[in-house]
């Protein structure tokens, strides 16, 4: 066998063996590294005399770096235009009945709960739901499916426009945060008690923020606070209480602004 032939066979062997080698290298687990957990508890008061209560289903972010290192980001968070849920839906032509339906269960979007039959037909019907239901009934030839699927015949702005606007604002801020810190930003949503966990944290300084303001009564609350993870914190969960009022264990207090009037 001459040299060229040997070379050819080696090349073939390499080509056949390469996927195996890649598969093997990917299956190797990285050595476990000890990391920390922050138990975030978000509590809010409607007024000074009310008790602190859990802030449910709100998204919070953990950005690597100190407040000073993230100064430009924090300024951008504070500068962003504030649009309340009611203003958004009013501006986009939602009927008073739809706004009332959202308010009734404190929903941000039509996806937050079932649209019951009462709101589709009859005296309590929401005009947008009634129209979408009529279209869906023709399309799906089935009243039950038409009601369950009626959001597919709602206008995009009323369906999920509020979510998309807020997501666009969050994405822009996240891009800025990641460019500043050069690291991934963690995000979690609180459960119904206002608790959430940031996991796999390495020692360092972080900023806890909600990026876009949270509506609390007639105010908009923004949290931007520094959090330290020390090597000693790695062995257990580190509790971190945030609120919109001062309290004994509160580590981070929101800056509240009155909700702006609708334009």
């Amino acid at each position, binding site marked *: 066998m001459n040299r060229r032939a040997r070379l050819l066979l080696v090349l073939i062997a390499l080509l056949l063996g390469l996927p195996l080698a890649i598969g093997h290298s990917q299956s190797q687990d990285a050595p476990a590294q000890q990391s920390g957990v922050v138990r975030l508890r978000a509590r809010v008061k409607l007024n000074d005399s009310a008790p602190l209560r859990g802030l449910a289903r709100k998204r919070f972010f953990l950005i690597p770096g100190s407040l000073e290192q993230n100064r430009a980001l924090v300024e951008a968070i504070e500068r962003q235009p504030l649009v309340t849920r009611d203003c958004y839906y009013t501006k986009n032509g939602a009927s008073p009945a739809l706004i009332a339906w959202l308010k009734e269960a404190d929903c941000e979007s039509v996806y937050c709960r079932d649209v019951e039959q009462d709101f589709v037909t009859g005296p309590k019907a929401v005009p947008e739901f009634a129209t979408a239901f009529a279209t869906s009934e023709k399309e799906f030839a089935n009243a039950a499916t038409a009601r369950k699927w009626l959001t597919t015949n709602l206008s995009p702005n009323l369906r999920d426009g509020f979510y998309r606007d807020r997501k666009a604002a969050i994405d822009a801020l996240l891009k800025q945060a990641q460019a500043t810190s050069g690291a991934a930003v963690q995000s979690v949503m609180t459960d119904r008690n206002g608790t*959430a966990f940031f996991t796999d944290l390495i020692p360092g300084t972080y900023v806890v923020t909600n990026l876009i303001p949270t509506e609390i009564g007639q105010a908009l609350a923004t949290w931007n606070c520094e959090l330290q993870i020390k090597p000693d914190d790695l062995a257990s969960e580190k509790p971190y209480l945030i609120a919109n009022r001062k309290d004994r264990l509160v580590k981070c207090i929101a800056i509240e602004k009155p909700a702006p009037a609708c334009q």
Partner: protein
Amino acid sequence: MNTILKASVFICVCLWPTYAAVDYTKFSHSTPKHKAACNTCHKIPTKDWTKGSAFPDITDYPDHDACVSCHRAQFFRGARPPICTVCHVKTSPRDEARYAFRNPATKLQFTIEFPHDRHQDVIALRQTNPWRSKLLAHAPQQNFNNCTICHAQATTATTPPTGGWLDAYAPPAATFKAVPLDHSSCFNCHWKSQEPVAINCNGCHKLATTPYTTATVPVRISLKFMHDGGGEKKQHVAECTTCHINITKSATLRTLKPDVPITSCTECHNKDGLRQDLNTELAALDKNRAFTCVYCHTSNVGKLDAPASHYLIAQRPPLKRSAIK
């Protein structure tokens, strides 16, 4: 040069059966010519979807046209063309019966993309309002959308694995949550205007590197935990994210793990004046290093070293079995 030729012929002869013998009884979406746009073959919804479904869906295999355009020769090969068996139960011009769509006996060829984080955001409330219940005590109970849209409580017990259940512990139906098995909980929002829409199959389904089957039994560390359990008061029934702490940041199903910390359990199961289930088992382990923890675990897990997290929550230094005398 002659040797190169011989080597090439040798390789071709060895590999030829792999490429030459096409098995027409199996359909692969990985075949280059099968990678066209999905709606080239699959019409959404299927023409007669109302016959087999309560909602518009893909309920059947593509029509013959989808195959014949390329496979005319295979369609008319012999009395029982093998290609027919991809869809048809019997190979006969007088029997139209087809397998269920999709055929549960065949391996899955596509993975599913599902960003839990985004869906959690979309259905999020402005607030699960603690004041509302006080101010509007008369208000009717609202059915808020949450994880149960897709993960309802399983109603039937899981089929035992091959070889039976470990320790003969058969988890009751209340153990596991269900997962979506059809498009009903997807298309109700993603039918035609909310991307990825129904005709954009690739928005959710990605061709897997190799066909696969899913595990028949969910992988569990604590097999004895029941989602629908917690005594008579069903105290395990909570909001899913209370225990599954990483779900709300999960943008993909890849590498998704249940991630329930021990603290979710010990809030009740290792509390003074309530229960001491963890302490009891750690104390038994102190006395006998061969002790198997059985309150939450089957023996495959219960005979391992208790993790450091268990000792820390019990306010004790972590210990290996080998260090117990």
